[in-house]
């Protein structure tokens, strides 16, 4: 896997995929440095998000297949298994207080390539 290190950042930016690999207003999963990361192309808001692919509720690797949307202004993803929803910004679970949050990652898009900072 190709990776680009950018100075003065604690992150390592990894090439994740091509823009076309992620469906518009939807998500998919990429394998980055041995880690499963869900990437979302929120076309409607003109934003990209990345989170863990694993839903902490039942530890299923499926968030990339989840539906995205918003609750008030908060962008969110719903797990396809039991519809726990998580903020795409903060990773907090929005509809189950007992559910742990998910990790979120910064995303950059340049020249048709999607990069994720880990």
């Amino acid at each position: 896997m190709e990776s680009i290190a950018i100075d003065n950042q604690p992150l390592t930016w990894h090439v994740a995929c091509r823009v076309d690999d992620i469906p518009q207003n939807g998500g998919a999963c990429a394998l980055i440095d041995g880690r499963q990361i869900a990437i979302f192309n929120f076309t409607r808001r003109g934003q990209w998000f990345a989170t863990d692919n694993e839903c902490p509720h039942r530890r299923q690797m499926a968030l990339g297949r989840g539906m995205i949307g918003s609750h008030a202004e908060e962008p969110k993803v719903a797990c396809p298994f039991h519809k726990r929803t998580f903020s795409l910004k903060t990773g907090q679970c929005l509809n189950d207080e007992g559910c742990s949050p998910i990790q979120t990652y910064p995303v950059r898009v340049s020249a048709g390539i999607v990069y994720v900072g880990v």
Partner: protein
Amino acid sequence: MSVHTNTRIVVIGNGMVGYKFCEKFVAKEKKGQSFSLTVFGEEARAAYDRVHLSSYLSCKTADDLTLAPADWYAQQGIQLYLGDPVVEIDRTSREVRSHQGRIVAYDYLVLATGSGAFVPPVAGVEKDGVFVYRTLEDLDLIQSYAHTVRQEGSGTFRGAVLGGGLLGLEAAKALLDLGVDEAHVVEFAPRLMPRQIDDAGSQVLQRQLESLGLSVHLNKNTQSITGDAVITGLQFADGSHLNVNLLVISAGIRPRDELARAAGLDTHPRGGILVNEQLQTSDPAIFAVGECAVVHQMVYGLVAPGYEMAEVVATQLLGATSQFKPFDMSTKLKLIGTDVGSFGDPFASEPECRTIVYENKAKGIYKRINISADGKQLLGGILVGDASQYNMLLQTCKNQTVLPPDPEDIILGSRGGEETGLGGVLSLPDEALICSCEAITKGQLCHEIANNGHTSVDALKKATKACTGCGGCTAMVKDLVGAVLNQQGVYVRNTLCEHFEYTRQELLDLVKMNHQKTYAAVLDAFGRGDGCEVCKPAVASILASLWNENILRQDRATIQDSNDRFLANIQRGGTYSVVPRIPGGEITPEKLIVIGQVAQKYGLYTKITGGQRIDLFGAHVGDLPSIWEELIRAGFESGHAYGKSLRTVKSCVGTTWCRFGVQDSVSFAIELENRYKGIRAPHKLKSAVSGCTRECAEAQSKDFGIIATEKGWNVYVCGNGGIKPQHAQLLASDVDKTTCIRLLDRFLMFYIKTADPLTRTATWLNKLEGGLNYLKAVVVDDVLGIANQLENEMQLLVDTYACEWKEVVETPELRQRFTHFVNAPAVKDPTVQFAPMRDQIRAREWA
């Protein structure tokens, strides 16, 4: 300085009523009132639920049955002494002395000593293997004895209960749960439950119980218990004999009045502490509550009146006035799976009243209602086998509601969900007691629902304690929630979510008129925000029902719910299951072989489904297109097991093979399945066709079901299995195939266009104003004049059908989405793990 000391209250007995007294007392106690409460219990356990004692053997633990843990008493400042019965009351010095020598002074004493089992004077009751049925300890003894008998393994294990009343039948349930080989009930009277039901009701109950493996012996006067030291059988006065290894005596209760008697309080000659309507004994400082008390010349042997007595005494001790009035002894319970209800005066008979009886021997149902001679009031009645109307009947009886002109409708008319003639739960007066255990009225519940936002049974349980006693009122409380909300207009407009201020029906009409075919177009035109997991699948369903275009094209893939998104059912571990369509359940050996080969090749677990087809589990998302490519090549199509759409039309073999069949059910099932396959609806649709009235295809449990008759086909609609089974109802009889299809076209399209999201046909019909009659008027009689339109809309869906999996397999840009890692399409999810199970695989457990 105050010289006033605490008012000291001592409660003797920590059973259900003794506990309830404590609970009521601390709940009513106001700040500034100073009391000390001391409780003595004979058993080592804190008060537990004796009503559901038999569940201890089948599913519950002692802790589950506990009413409040020991630390609850401590938190409330109650001094609780368990395993330490009071042995003496000194009324002169106002002190009690316990077995362990504790001496506690009282200002007021509450006797809640309950009752013990009544053991009739039969020779041999002291033998090993003879038990009573009253406490958890009794159950432990019975259980360990049964264990010993079984270990010795000496032939058939026969258990018997002496007493065929309410408690006796509960004990019989316990015997069945213990797994005895034979369970017998022996009753002296000529019928079961002699205090609650009549001879005819007893006969129906007896047949039901016998069909569940219980032997019932009536009119049996037990003379002696045979055996040396250990029971071997029962000898009856009529000369007959019954071999048993274990006997549970449950012949009635005897009030525990020995302490009161020794203290010189007035008692009844046949047992029980005499009290007035304030529940005071002959010593005004001493009260008695529950089954140890005799009030109105009787012992109230049920928990609800006991709780009411606890309330009456707690109220008085806190300074208010209260009286215990004659209490309704109506009961409803499930005995070994059979509902039995008895309310008001169950035995009232002509000429003072008119009696209406309904009996269905085949179904094991008996209903009797007694109506005043003028036909206006319900005096009482009996329900066996089906007590679903118990609550309404009880309320009608208690509140002296005026009956409808044809009172028989109240027990006959409600079959199949039609109007009962009684009006809904809202027609009851506010003071109607809905939960008699906790004395909660309809008015209180309505107030909590309407003003305090307690709009679920759970919330109401917390707020009012309704449904926490016997639980018999739960269904009625649920109805009340629905009715109050409905009255407030809460359900009148069920809008989709925060993004759409429209109901599904409104949105469907709008999308149709405006020819929108993508989610973005619909959201831009009629919604706001970015959508969510509620409105996206709802709009997806609307678009599919209107235009029937491939659900993964344009922007529609990402608005599909979990299963539709990948045209397969997502399962544990993130793998998918695959179900090819097998119309009517008919399949050639060649196709069966292909399914086997595909399953072998892709390592799939196979199982026959309830809908007469084959499910292949454990497929990686990346394998789905190849799996389908092979299935499609062999002539299979998508089975839509993942969609809110037609699943299967199940069939029996009908005239093609069956000697009873009157029509060719398989051919018709295949025709219907092929007609309606792929059509998306608000929820899944299941169907079946039976070739004769024996109904082997179970059509009456389906969304639409067809049963062959000599003359044609009967059409049933809106049945359901699932959480709340509901029989389908007859829409039309003896129609030919063409008419049947026309009616189904109209019915299905009407449902598709008007139902709320994720609402099955049964629920849709239940909510439909006018119910089945209205549905018939629309679908059969075409009162709305839309029948033609509905048929045309359905025909459009039928004509535009295409196997969506075939399209995906043949379309590279759709096919490429079926990967786990977009940047490594050939890599499978490494976290997917299987465990072996019976020569196949299964998904690993939830983490």
